């Protein structure tokens, strides 16, 4: 029974594997953050238009990118869980949502801090910031729906459907917001000049990787708790060393 193997032992092996991987992801995230920020603050030159303020991008851009990708990955896992009834995928989707929401929040927060010196206002109705805000709403809706259904199976399936509908809607929303923005001649935060300094690019790339590693570490840690909670009736859980003592 191939399906049974997939259904029942996948969380078992995954639990152990995730436990071994988390420290590696965590430590490399910390190191890369340090390296990326060192380059970003000491090596990269001051931008002649934006001064020092542009240095916010080393956290703003990675968190925007990650929050958007995490939503798609979450919807992908949710769809897998819904279609093939694989439990681990549903648990992964559940574990991704809070991290995605937090990255969306960081992106909004840092976007506002960048907007203030650039545009003189904390919040500008720029297409990207507005889309990010709607993305945060979508995450919050997913989390709220999942949290308000007691039966975990129904919660997984219902919120999976919502995530899929949301991800189909994301391009439509993005397009409509952009359209709305051009009509109203809104301001867009753009990087001055066409070429970014090499050190800026390096720093941004390194912090992006660091953010990804951090996100993976936290998501794996969260999914381990969810596995423990959902599988608490099974034998293998009671035989885990951390449960035994």
């Amino acid at each position, binding site marked *: 029974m191939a399906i049974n193997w997939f259904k029942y032992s996948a969380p078992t092996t995954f639990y152990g594997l995730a436990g071994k991987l988390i420290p590696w992801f965590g430590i490399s995230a910390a190191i890369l953050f340090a390296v990326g920020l060192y380059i970003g603050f000491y090596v990269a030159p001051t931008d002649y238009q934006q001064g020092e303020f542009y240095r916010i991008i080393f956290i703003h851009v990675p968190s925007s990118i990650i929050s958007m990708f995490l939503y798609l990955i979450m919807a992908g896992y949710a769809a897998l869980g819904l279609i093939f009834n694989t439990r681990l995928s549903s648990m992964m989707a559940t574990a991704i949502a809070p991290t995605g929401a937090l990255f969306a929040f960081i992106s909004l927060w840092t976007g506002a801090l960048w907007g203030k010196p650039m545009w003189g206002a904390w919040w500008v109705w720029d297409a990207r910031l507005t889309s990010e805000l709607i993305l945060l709403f979508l995450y919050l809706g997913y989390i709220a729906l999942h949290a308000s259904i007691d*039966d*975990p*199976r129904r919660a997984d399936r219902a919120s999976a459907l919502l995530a899929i509908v949301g991800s189909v809607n994301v391009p439509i929303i993005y397009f409509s917001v952009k359209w709305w923005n051009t009509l109203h001649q809104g301001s867009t935060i753009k990087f001055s000049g066409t070429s970014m300094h090499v050190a800026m690019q390096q720093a941004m790339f390194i912090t992006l990787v660091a953010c990804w590693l951090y996100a993976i570490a936290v998501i794996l840690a969260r999914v381990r708790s969810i596995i423990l909670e959902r599988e608490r*009736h099974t034998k293998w859980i009671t035989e885990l060393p951390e449960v035994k003592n």
Partner: protein
Amino acid sequence: MLEVSNLACSRGDHRLFSGLSFALHPGQIMQVQGENGSGKTSLLRTLCGFLMPDEGDILWNGSSVSELQEEYYAEMLYLGHLNAIKDELSGLENLRISAGMSGIELSEKDAIAALRRMGLKGRELLPTKVLSQGQRRRVALARLLVSDAKLWVLDEPLAALDVAAVALIEELIAEHLARQGMVIFTTHQPLQVAGMEMRTLTLTRAGSGSRGRPA
């Protein structure tokens, strides 16, 4: 013919039953027994496709119910705890609409005849909110009279009914079986169908691997 093989069902963390197999042939009637919480209603709801079984298959005339979908639904009728009637509508409107939803266009004359046979003469046009519990149940059960479904799945059909209505339902079931229909039901009240062998399926509660076996 309805065939169930190796069916397993659970609610939340709790396994209700597993390894359940039985077959129901035309003209047969089966009562599902078991204490509260043993999964009687869940079994019937699984047969309707509301619940996904953890394991096992439900076959209708040899094909899987989940593949047949609407084709299977056209040949079955389910009456649950809820009456599925609207307080604002009259018995007549309710019956015609619920028949319509099960795919039968019912004329007013036939609907009135059915309601009269259920003992609702003179109340056909009243909004059902003024009827008693038992009378509303009768409106819901009137669907049995106008349905051409082969398989009846009845969850506590006798609840709230008086002696006369129980006798009437017994008569309807006997007619249905005589037409080579099939009935699977649960009840807490005794139900006798004259001249029919009543098969029983007992769901026993146990921590794991509870088994139902047809007697």
